[in-house]
C-alpha cells in the first residue's frame, strides 16, 4: 500500500449494471487525483459484481475495493453503509464521491454521519485548492439563486454527491490494468432490518438526463396546450420535452419533465429553451448542454446570456416555422 492520497468513487450498480454517473465521477475524480498527486480508486459493493469492478478499471480506477456478498444483492441502506464505512476506516480516503441518485443520496448521508464528516449535495463543480490541497465543492445555494463554494477542511473524507450528467463520460479503455482488492462485509442477513418484498416496474418514464435533444418550455408558452407544439418538435428531433419549475408548479406538465436545481440535470447536444426566462435555478440544470438555443420575446431575459443561439421573438411563430424547416431538411435526406 502506498501513502498517496486516495480519491474514491462509489460505483453504483444494480443487478450488475453500473449507473453511468459512476463512470462520469471516475473521470472527474481522475483529475482530482492528478492534482493531488494521489491515486484514483473505486469502491464496488454487490453480489456477483466482479465484472463491474473490472469496468471501473477500464474507466480509470487504479485499484478497486470489492465487497461481494449475498447480503448486498440489492440496495439497502444499512449493509451498504456498513461496508463503505468499514472501507473508509481502513483506507482513509481523502475524497469520496457518490452519484446524487436515490441510492447515492441515501447512502451518502449514512456514511457521512457514521464518519462524522461533511457532505455536500448536488455538486456542480469540484477542484483541488492548489495551496491547501482541500477539495473546493461548488453547488447552487439558497434556492438556486447563487452558487456557493464549500470546503470540508478538517474532516475526512471530503464527501460530495454529484448528479448524473454533471461531468462528461470519460473514455473507456478495456486494456487498462488495475488491482482488485477483495474485502469482507462482516454482516449477516439476520442483522439487516430491511427486506425487499416486491419490485414494481414503472411504465415509460421520461429519460431526460440522457436525452440528446431537449425541447423545453416555460411560462412564455402561455398555457399547458403550448407543450403540444414542443412535443411535436421534440418527436421530430428524436428528443424529450423539458420544462421550467414555474410551469411544473403551475401544473402544465408533470414533474418528471422538470429541468433545474429542483428537477433534473441534463447535458443534451441541443437544448432548446422556449419561453424560459432562465433563472439560475433553471440554468444550473442545463448549463452543460452542448448547444443552447433560446427563444424568448424579452430581449433582456437572462437565458440569452447563456445561449449559443438566441431568437428574440414569438415562439408561436418561430416553432411552427422551425417544425416546417426541420421537416424539409429531413425530407432531403
Amino acid at each position, binding site marked *: 500500500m502506498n501513502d498517496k492520497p486516495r480519491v474514491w468513487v462509489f460505483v453504483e450498480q444494480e443487478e450488475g449494471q453500473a449507473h453511468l454517473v459512476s463512470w462520469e465521477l471516475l473521470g472527474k475524480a481522475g483529475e482530482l487525483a492528478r492534482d493531488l498527486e494521489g491515486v484514483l480508486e473505486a469502491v464496488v459493493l454487490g453480489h456477483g459484481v466482479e465484472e463491474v469492478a473490472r469496468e471501473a478499471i477500464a474507466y480509470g480506477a487504479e485499484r478497486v475495493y470489492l465487497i461481494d456478498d449475498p447480503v448486498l444483492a440489492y440496495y439497502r441502506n444499512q449493509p451498504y453503509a456498513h461496508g463503505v464505512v468499514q472501507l473508509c476506516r481502513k483506507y482513509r480516503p481523502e475524497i469520496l464521491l457518490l452519484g446524487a441518485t436515490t441510492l447515492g443520496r441515501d447512502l451518502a448521508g449514512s456514511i457521512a454521519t457514521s464518519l462524522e464528516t461533511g457532505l455536500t449535495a448536488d455538486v456542480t463543480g469540484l477542484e483541488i485548492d492548489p495551496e491547501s490541497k482541500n477539495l473546493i465543492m461548488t453547488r447552487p445555494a439558497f434556492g438556486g439563486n447563487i452558487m456557493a463554494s464549500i470546503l470540508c477542511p478538517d474532516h475526512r473524507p471530503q464527501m460530495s454527491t454529484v448528479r448524473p450528467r454533471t461531468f462528461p463520460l470519460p473514455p473507456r479503455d478495456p486494456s487498462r490494468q488495475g488491482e482488485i482488492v477483495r474485502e469482507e462485509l462482516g454482516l449477516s442477513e439476520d442483522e439487516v432490518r*430491511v427486506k425487499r418484498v416486491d419490485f414494481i416496474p414503472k411504465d415509460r418514464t421520461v429519460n431526460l438526463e440522457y436525452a440528446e*435533444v431537449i425541447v423545453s418550455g416555460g411560462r412564455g408558452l402561455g398555457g399547458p396546450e403550448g407543450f403540444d407544439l414542443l412535443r411535436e418538435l421534440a418527436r421530430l428531433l428524436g428528443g424529450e420535452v423539458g420544462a421550467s419549475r414555474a410551469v411544473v408548479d403551475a401544473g402544465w406538465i408533470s414533474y418528471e419533465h422538470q429541468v433545474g436545481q429542483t428537477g433534473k440535470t441534463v447535458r443534451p447536444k441541443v437544448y432548446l429553451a422556449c419561453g424560459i426566462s432562465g433563472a439560475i435555478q433553471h440554468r444550473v440544470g442545463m448549463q452543460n448542454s452542448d448547444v443552447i*438555443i433560446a427563444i424568448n420575446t424579452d430581449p433582456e431575459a437572462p437565458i440569452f446570456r447563456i445561449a449559443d443561439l438566441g431568437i428574440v421573438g*414569438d415562439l408561436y411563430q418561430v416553432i411552427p416555422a422551425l417544425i416546417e424547416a426541420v421537416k424539409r431538411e429531413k425530407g432531403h435526406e
Partner: protein
Amino acid sequence: MHLIVCLKPVPKPGTVRVDPKTHTLKRDSAQLILNPPDLYALEMAVELKETYGGKVTALMMGPPNAAELLREAYALGADEMVLLSDRAFAGSDTLATSYVLSRGIKRLEPYDLVLMGKASIDGETAQVGPETAAWLGLPSVIQVKKIQREGDHGWVVVRVREGYEEELFLSGPAVVTVEPGINDPRPPSLKRLLAVRELAPRLFSAQDLECEPEKLGLSGSPTQVLDVFAPSYQREQILLTGEPEEVAQELVSHLRTRGLI
C-alpha cells in the same frame, strides 16, 4: 402508535438574505414558513394515525419564533409540538442539524416511525433524513410514497427509485423521507386553530437534550461556505433575427453544420 414528523422552518421564497461576512443565511430578516415538502410527511403521519390510532409529534429545530409554525402543524393534525431551540444550534450544517434532531427524537422515545420531507426548499440537500437515521442507528429509506403497518412493530413502505418502485419491509422504527406530491395535505382545521392558541410547544435546549457541545452549530459542522458568487457562462451568444421562416432556416443550418440534424 407514536409518529414523529420533523419539520423545518424555511424562509419564504423571496425573503432570503445572505450574511456578507459568514455567507450563511440571515434568518432574522426572513419570513418563516413550514418547508412545503414537509407538509406531505405531516399529512402522511396524520393519515397513519387516523388508520392505526396513536399520536403525531411535530418536531422542529429553529428559533423561538418558529413556535408559530408548530402551531400551524397542530392545526394540520399534529397532536404534540416540540421545539429544539438554542443559540448554540446556529450555523449548523446538515451533520450538526441531524445530530440535534436525533437528540430530540431520542428524547421522545418510544416511537414507531420518524417521517421527514424529501428536502428543504432552501438547502435542498435531501441529506438530513439519512444523516439523522445514522445518528439513531436506524434504517433510512428515502423517497417513500406509501406506508402501511405490518405486524406489531414493522412497516411496509414503497420507495420510488429511478424507473421503478420497490416495496420494502422494515422490522421496526426507521427514518423515512416522503416523496412530495403523493397526498393532498389537508387545510388547517378551524377548531384546532382555536384550540392551539392556548397551547405552547415543549421547548428543549442543548442542555435539555444532553448534546455534546462540540457537535453543535459551527463547531459541529464539518462543511464551511468559502464563498458565494453569481455563476459565469461562456457562450457564443449569436442573435438570429428576421422573419420566423428565415430564422428557422438559419437555425436548421446551424444544427446541420454541427451534425445535430
